[in-house]
């Protein structure tokens, strides 16, 4: 019967092309706008850590003074990061910040380029499960004893080494030679969860160098630096000794026990720092002054998905509802016009259920067509957002799940609009129309 209903639905759609077009347009525009906002929202609220969310944790400390900030700062001071790096209880840990360096290779034909560089520890690659194409991360000893080693991305490797295995080769960063120890595959998590303070949807860096080089190379900070009191910054050492926050700190905690141990360690650490005259905001207890945030919490705290976005999704759903009310009216008109035919069908043996099913299939078909057209609207709008307004392609790319979700939403919403008209028409009293036809 389903195929029979589909056949009838298609004939009915063809019979009233203008009315059908209006309905398809109404539903497709509603769906198009909803899917566009939903797609952006879904992309932005995606958690790249997946099922490792609870294991990958960032640490924040309430190192500021009294009456300063209302929230934990995502970044930490160099002092705290150094102390945490020296904490042997933490097996896997990585400090991380962004800088920018001029890069060139031995190939004189390749012009130097200015690139974002991630300054970090070797465990960064383990914590964020970064996939390697050639070689590996630098040795853990480099985190203690600085060495000029580098891990580069596939794109850089393609540009400067024609895609060949460049492990052992040299690149120059700000004229200093760095030995390539590893090449990672294209890796560009969205949101950029390992540093949401630097534009959550910016591209990941393609060059990674040891954090241990920071003091001797005095890398600039290409990211947010926050301070809660005036501190003269006349030298790099001033920055390192200051209470300015600019470094992220990550660790991998496999179990709750490990998490509890770290929390205890951090509490003790805050107490110790207070005895040194730091962490002066005593409104918070030492335990409250340290926070371990899994990825989802960190993204939420950093408003990776702006609240405007949620409002936009809500508004687009309201718009879809307006479209549905219009469709409901059109369907009611269309179906009631066919009441005499329903009367005949009922007279010759169709049950109410069969008539209802027939009309719901028609509604579903209109919804499906509307969904497909709506998907094209969404795709066009997203492409326009990228082309005309330079919105990041990672946000404007149509999520693959939308190809399945959109027709489903379209059919469901059309069905919602069609229930009442189908119900009205299936309750048609056949005797009313048989004589009148």
């Amino acid at each position, binding site marked *: *019967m389903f195929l*029979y209903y589909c056949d009838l639905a298609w*004939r*009915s759609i063809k*019979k009233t092309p203008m009315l059908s077009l209006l309905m398809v347009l109404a539903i497709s525009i509603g769906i198009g706008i909803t899917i566009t906002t939903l797609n952006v929202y879904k992309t932005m609220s995606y958690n790249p850590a997946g099922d490792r969310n609870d294991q990958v944790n960032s640490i924040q400390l309430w190192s500021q003074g009294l009456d300063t900030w209302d929230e934990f700062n995502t970044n930490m001071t160099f002092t705290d990061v150094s102390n945490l790096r020296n904490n042997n209880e933490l097996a896997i840990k990585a400090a991380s910040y962004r800088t920018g360096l001029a890069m060139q290779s031995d190939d004189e034909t390749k012009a130097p380029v200015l690139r974002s560089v991630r300054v970090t520890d070797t465990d960064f690659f383990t914590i964020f499960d970064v996939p390697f194409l050639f070689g590996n991360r630098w040795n853990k000893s480099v985190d203690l004893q600085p060495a000029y080693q580098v891990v580069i991305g596939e794109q850089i490797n393609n540009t400067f080494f024609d895609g060949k295995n460049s492990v052992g080769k040299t690149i120059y960063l700000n004229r200093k030679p760095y030995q390539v120890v590893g090449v990672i595959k294209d890796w560009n998590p969205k949101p950029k969860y390992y540093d949401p303070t630097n534009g959550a949807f910016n591209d990941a860096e393609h060059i990674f160098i040891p954090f241990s080089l920071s003091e001797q190379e005095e890398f600039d900070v290409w990211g947010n630096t926050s301070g809660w009191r005036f501190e003269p910054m006349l030298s790099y050492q001033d920055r390192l000794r200051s209470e300015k926050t600019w470094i992220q700190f990550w660790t991998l905690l496999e179990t709750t026990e490990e998490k509890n141990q770290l929390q205890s360690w951090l509490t003790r650490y805050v107490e110790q720092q207070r005895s040194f005259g730091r962490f002066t905001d005593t409104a918070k207890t030492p335990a409250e002054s340290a926070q371990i945030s899994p990825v989802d919490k960190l993204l939420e705290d950093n408003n990776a998905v702006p609240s405007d976005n949620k409002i936009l999704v809500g508004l687009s759903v309201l718009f879809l509802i307006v479209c549905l009310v219009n469709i409901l009216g059109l369907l009611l008109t269309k179906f009631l016009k066919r009441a*005499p*035919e329903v*009367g*005949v*069908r*009922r*007279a*010759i*043996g*169709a*049950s*109410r*259920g*069969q008539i209802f099913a027939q009309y719901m299939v028609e509604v579903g078909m209109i919804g499906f067509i509307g969904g497909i057209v709506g998907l094209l609207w969404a795709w066009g709008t997203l492409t326009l957002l990228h082309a005309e307004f330079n919105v990041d392609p990672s946000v404007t790319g149509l999520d693959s799940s939308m190809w399945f979700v959109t027709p489903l939403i379209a059919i469901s919403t059309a069905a919602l609009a069609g229930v009442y008209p189908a119900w009205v028409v299936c309750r048609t*009293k*056949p*005797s009313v129309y*048989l*004589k*009148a*036809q």
Partner: protein
Amino acid sequence: MLSMKNISKVFKTDLVETHALREFNLNVAEGEFVAVTGPSGSGKTTFLNIAGLLEGFTEGEYCLDGVNVSNLSDNKSAQIRNEKIGFIFQGFNLIPDLNLAENVEVPLRYRGVKSSERKRRVEAALEQVGLAARMKHLPTQLSGGQQQRVAIARALAGEPRFLLADEPTGNLDSLMARQVMELLENINQSGTTIIMVTHDAELARRAQRNIQIVDGQVCDFSMYQKADHSVVAELKKVADQKQAAELNQIVSGA
């Protein structure tokens, strides 16, 4: 086959109550061809709608094919209509978007008959009404008489035991009306019970039994019809409610 006892049908609005049928009694035996006549507004169509389970009734008891169908659910009524009853309407009531074969197969679709069996029955039904060659035509491409034959084929395809025809020749010229009537007679001869509502006295006379509905009640002239057609005709002319009631009493008393 069909037995109605003291059937009443009252249409109510806020202001008035209209008694379409009152203490309506009728028995139709299997294989009978009954013509129903009566003035406009007498309750013929209401009777046909109730007989065809298209409408409920206010009081009384209705048995169809030995089954009490007085209080059936909507689904069950639809099932009985589909399996046991065929309808022929004055306005043909074909579905304009479907071709002849598709129109004829509609009741079979709802019955869940398999494709091959459907095809066989549709062809046989259209063959029977002489339209097998025009299977792919749309109803609008046919004359009124041909459309009515398609409607008959649709009713026949379901192999009903009981055919209800509401003014089947009302929209046809006399030649086509005769052809349709002959078709109905042939169908009746093959064993299908037919109840036909008509205004045409000539066609009504061709039925085995002739009943008249006056003010929602039955006047059965069959006994007199067999005895003397002229007397019956005369009685019909002067029949009023009182006479009809008296005659009904005589008939049922007999």
